[in-house]
């Protein structure tokens, strides 16, 4: 009797297996399908891909090199209004679809090249913060005790400051410049990753598969790198995507205050800062870099939100 039941149970589970093998859907395929279903996430992805394309193909898209001064080469002055032939700008004038800046450089070319700076900066800061933050978080969560205490109290101190003010202080220590701004923003974003990683590790540590590995005699290192960390990465992917947006915004803020990218580098924040006193006479030189920052940040924000919804089905409504 019992045997029969067991066999039946095995059979039903086997048929369930068959059902699964007919439609093999991995976790990733499921996530991808859910992500595709989110309109805003897809819009974000498209924006991000277009921006990456723009950054990679900058020399083909931009009509001029970003730092080429056009004095003597063309009949244009500084801070000329945008001139687009299709929209009725006289054909005998050279076309500058976003006008020229104070040093008679083509604004559109600088905006296109600016995508390279902002994207690189966003990716690098997040990579640094992600690696350092998740290592610290994993260490704190996995070992516990005083190591946990020391690491997390330091993170609390960093989180206690308004992030932009702390970044300003760090740049003041290191000296202004794009590279130091990058380091400063990476440092202020470390605690977020550390905290999420620690929380993940704490819950995964108690799971059955970790207990099973422990019973099989896995070393701490094998447990941490082979079992715990790979399973803890999901929320960090979301955080990292949103982190790129924050990093780009904060870097632009630092550049605006004169602490980040320095002229003549074509960086949106510093382009905007250079021309801010001319906003009443040449608003286009402030408008376009700002729009570029906004679209980039918006793209990563939408993509991050879409990813979060796709990775966490419980949020689906």
């Amino acid at each position: 009797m019992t045997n029969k039941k067991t066999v039946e149970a095995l059979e039903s589970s086997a048929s369930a297996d068959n059902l699964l093998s007919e439609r093999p859907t991995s976790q990733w395929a499921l996530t991808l399908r859910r992500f595709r279903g989110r309109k805003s996430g897809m819009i974000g992805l498209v924006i991000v891909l277009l921006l990456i394309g723009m950054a990679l193909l900058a020399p083909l898209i931009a009509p001029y090199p970003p730092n080429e001064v056009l004095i003597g080469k063309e009949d244009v002055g500084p801070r000329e209004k945008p001139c687009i032939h299709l929209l009725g700008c006289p054909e005998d004038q050279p076309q500058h679809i976003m006008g020229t800046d104070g040093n008679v450089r083509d604004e559109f070319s600088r905006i296109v090249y600016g995508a390279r700076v902002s994207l690189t900066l966003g990716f690098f800061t997040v990579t640094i913060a992600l690696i350092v933050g998740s290592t610290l978080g994993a260490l704190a969560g996995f070992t516990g005790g005083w190591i946990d205490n020391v690491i997390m109290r330091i993170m609390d101190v960093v989180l206690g400051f308004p992030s932009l003010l702390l970044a300003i202080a760090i740049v003041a220590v290191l000296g202004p410049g794009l590279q130091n701004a990058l380091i400063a923003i990476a440092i202020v974003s470390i605690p977020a990753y550390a905290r999420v990683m620690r929380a993940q590790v704490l819950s995964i540590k108690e799971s059955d598969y970790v207990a099973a590995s422990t019973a099989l005699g896995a070393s701490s290192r094998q447990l941490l790198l082979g079992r715990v960390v790979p399973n803890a990465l999901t929320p960090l992917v979301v955080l990292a995507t949103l982190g790129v947006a924050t990093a780009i915004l904060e870097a632009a803020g630092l550049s605006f205050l004169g602490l980040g990218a320095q002229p003549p580098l074509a960086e949106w924040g510093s382009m905007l800062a250079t021309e801010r006193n001319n906003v009443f006479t040449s608003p286009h030189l402030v408008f376009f870099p700002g729009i570029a920052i906004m679209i980039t940040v918006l793209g990563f924000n939408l993509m991050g939100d879409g990813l979060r919804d796709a990775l966490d089905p419980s949020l689906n409504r």
Partner: protein
Amino acid sequence: MVVVFLLIRAIPGEPCSAILGEQATVEACERFNEANGLNDPIWVQLAIYIGNVLTFNLGESIQFSVPVSQLLIERLPLTIELAMSALIIAVVVGVPLGIIAARRHNTAIDAGTMAFANIGVSMPVFWLGLMLAYLFAVVLKDTPFALPPGGRLSAGVISVPYYVVWNWNLTEGSTWAGINEFVGNFVIFNSFITGQWSVWWDAVQHMILPAITLATIPMAIIARITRSSLLEAMNKDYIRTARSKGATETRVVSKHGLRNSLLPVVTIIGLQLGLLLGGAVLTETVFRLAGVGTALFDAITGRDYAVVQGFTVIIAAGYVVVNLLVDLSYGYLDPRIRVSK
């Protein structure tokens, strides 16, 4: 406090060369360091500092040559007025937006509101400020909507402090005089209670654009949290109960849904303080306002130890107070928290 002290000292670069200029002679620097107590061992400096803070003596600004407390009296009221106006705008606009989006879930209104919120969090604060200034000071110049692009009051407009208007007899330099000067520097408040209406209107006009600029990001965040929190609350059993006993939809939303969804919203509002302070640096820079944000920026880049320390202590105290208020409001919003001590 100690952390701030040590962190600030870790900034390389001599305050001397930042203040006296790069060409300052060694002797001049030596005299400068001696006068400002910078030659003492670090632990002596720390002990003196802690003693001073406990007696509300925040030291003297090396850069501005005034006591830090005087700098706070001059600068802090502006930033508080700015942050409060921004927070009020953010809550008054953000919460209803979130409610509307949640009530019209999955409609064009919902999508539009959320698109607005997404764009709001993605905008650089300083860019929005400059664009608003251009729009209201140049494009709308000769219309009734024109607003000044910067500064706190128009040239020639002076706010007379209430203690002068009311002929109070204050001893110069006393704590009581300091407190009154501080309160009197809340220009909008001061001109309101003393009935200087033209000054009040001028101050309000100058505050509108910076406040909107600073409010945008918190507003967008508050709208998003309100929406998702209300959506979650509206799925609960008690909402079904309220509906089934025949309560009107308005009552269901306001009494049962909203009240239960406000907890995360209040938490987020408290957390916005840090964001507001960071944003205040950029907003005050754009609108040329002499507030705490710009002072702190100047102090950090100019190695003005006393100012950075003093202001940071005040900011930290502000954090503690706001978080206390947030915690207290939990008890009001959710009686279960109050009962369980």
